[in-house]
Each structure stands twice: as structure tokens, then as C-alpha cells.
């Protein structure tokens, strides 16, 4: 029970004080759980990071569920996940109540016109940063270029095609290439 309470408090703190989303949270989590509390070894933490980053959903929620489960079972997973979401939920809900009134102030609306431009920049630089970290191989280059071009054209020509399909098709392409390579290799070793 004490473990669950500590998990709750730790993840509540992380949810309340980290700006900049999941990746910023990972550094804080490592410090808190590996260095201070020694609940996880560095290797376990790295395993957790790999799982949290490569499964769907917010990285912060994925990490909270995983670590909560490792330390205190399903109760721990639920407590940590709930705790990491709670501060966001309360803060954003309160802001959403006042945002419309706030935005109708003249200078606030000017400020938000500027901020909207900044959001374009933020999304673009997040994309470029991820692009740089991709390995430069044929699959990555082909998929990135074709999906970026198709998705932009679809939206300009108002074609209704969900990004979900892009994600699933590209995943299937990855699996198909893998199977193809394996069959070819098997053919070679048989000779």
C-alpha cells in the first residue's frame, strides 16, 4: 500500500511539473526511479523506454503503466497512470472554462495570432528533429517521402483518407519486406 501511495505521488509530481511531453519526462523519471528510489536498474529502465516509445499512445502514460505494474502489480499500474494524467486534466479543464472569454480580449487575440504561427514552427521542428534521427536507408527514405507527399496532396485536394491507414499500410510494408528478405535468405542457404 505504501508503494502504491509513493507511486501515486511520484507520478503526480511528474505529471504536474514536466513541460514538453513524454521525452522530457523520461529524464526526470530516470533520476527519480533509478538514482533516488532504486526501484529499477538502469537496464530495466532502458527496456521500459524502448517499450514506451514503440507502443502506441502517449510516452508518459506508457511509462507510468509499465513502471507501476513492475513495482506494485495492476493496482500500481492504475495508480501511476491515474496520477500522471490528473494534473493535466485539472489544469486544462480549468483553462478550457475561461479560454473563450480570455481570447475575446483584444491583445490576447493578437498574442494568439502570433502563437499560432509559432505552433506551425513547433510542429515543423518536431518533424525535422525526428527526421534527423531516422537512419538513412532505402525503406525510411521511400516511406517518408511518399507518405509526406501523398498526405499533403490528399489534404490539399480534400481527399478523405485517414492517417490511420497510412500508419497501418506502412507497418504492413515493413512486415512484408521482412518476410521477403527471410524467404530470399532461406532460398540462398538451401542452395
Amino acid at each position: 500500500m505504501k508503494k502504491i501511495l509513493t507511486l501515486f505521488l511520484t507520478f503526480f509530481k511528474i505529471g504536474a511539473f514536466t513541460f514538453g511531453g513524454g521525452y522530457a519526462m523520461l529524464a526526470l523519471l530516470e533520476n527519480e526511479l533509478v538514482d533516488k528510489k532504486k526501484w529499477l536498474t538502469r537496464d530495466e529502465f532502458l527496456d521500459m523506454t524502448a517499450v514506451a516509445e514503440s507502443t502506441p499512445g502517449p510516452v508518459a502514460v506508457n511509462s507510468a503503466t509499465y513502471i507501476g505494474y513492475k513495482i506494485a502489480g495492476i493496482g500500481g499500474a492504475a495508480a501511476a497512470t491515474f496520477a500522471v494524467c490528473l494534473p493535466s486534466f485539472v489544469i486544462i479543464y480549468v483553462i478550457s472554462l475561461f479560454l473563450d472569454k480570455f481570447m475575446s480580449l483584444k491583445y490576447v487575440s493578437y498574442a494568439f495570432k502570433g502563437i499560432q504561427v509559432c505552433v506551425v514552427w513547433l510542429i515543423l521542428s518536431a518533424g525535422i528533429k525526428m527526421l534527423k534521427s531516422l537512419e538513412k536507408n532505402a525503406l525510411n527514405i521511400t516511406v517518408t517521402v511518399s507518405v509526406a507527399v501523398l498526405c499533403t496532396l490528399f489534404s490539399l485536394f480534400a481527399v478523405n483518407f485517414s492517417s490511420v491507414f497510412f500508419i497501418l499500410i506502412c507497418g504492413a510494408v515493413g512486415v512484408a519486406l521482412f518476410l521477403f528478405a527471410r524467404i530470399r535468405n532461406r532460398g540462398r542457404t538451401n542452395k
Partner: protein
Amino acid sequence: MIYLKLFLTFLEIGAVSFGGGYGMVSLIREKVLINGWLTESGFLDIVAVSESTPGPLAINMATFVGSSQGGFLGALTATLGVVLPSFIIILVIAAVIKGLMKYAGVQAFLSGVRPCVVALIISTAITVGLSSLFAIKTVKSAPIADFGALAIFAVLVIFALIFKRIKKKAPSPILMIVLSAGLGILFYGITEP
């Protein structure tokens, strides 16, 4: 039934969005525009507020969209929807199939998904940029350059480049948001008093 719709929409987003918060931005934008929940500029405002408040971007955006459409219950159902797939998938991985990530098939799937997510984010940036800087929403719309927005964008890019050269790291999103707010007040305050 708006609550069910919010729940299912965010459940879908939570289940297929790889690559963390920004991976989700493209999907959320698509859904809120198709459902007519927000306009393009309303969506950008929500991203801005979500970026400048603590907590996971995805949770912030889900709570925001939910609250704008269905008040407190809407916020609750949207947030629950976006969290639930993560919670279940991670529990299954942690408890039942511990080595899932080590399977070659899973790695192969992810090898295709990873570049796709990057492409979706870049495409979202291009689409949002064309729409808010040049008023181009589809090929049919006549381009109108918003010179104020273009000037602000140029200042932001130059600032980020200089900052990176001097400090050896990218400026934080919050710093950029504060700067752009100031530029917005300065520019639009002068041109449309």
C-alpha cells in the same frame, strides 16, 4: 451522443498513434476538423495551450477537445479514451508477453511505422503552414499571404537559428511561444489598432 463519439474517436487515436505527442497531433487535427469540432486556428490555439502547460501533450489535447465539445463529462470521456489503449497494451506486454518487443515481426512492423509517423508530422506542418500563412486550404482556395504571420515566422526561425548557434541547443517550446505572443501583440497591435 457526443460522449460516446468523443470516447471512440480518442480511443482510436490512442490505439494507433505511434511516436508520442507530436505523432498524435496529425491524427487529432484530422479528427477535429472532420467532425467540425474545431477550426484550424482553434486547433492551433489548443496545441499552443497544451504545449505551454505541464503534462503529456496528448492528455492535454484530449481534455481540451473533450471539454470544448461536452464539458466536464466530455473531457473525462476523451481523456479516458486516449489513455485506455496504452494502459491495456502496456499491461499485456508487461504481464503476459514480456519479450514482445524482441520479436522480429514486431520490429519489422515498427520499421515501417517509424518513417511514416515522421512523414505525417512534416505533412501536418506543411498543411497547417499553408493554411495559416497563405490561407491555402485546398487547391481551389486563392492564396492570400498573411504578411504579419510570415514576418513573425521569419523572426522565429532566425531567433531559433541564432539561439542554437550560441547556446548549442534548441530553444524550449515555451520560450518560442512567449516570443511569438509578444511579436503578435507588437505586430497586430500596430497594424490593426
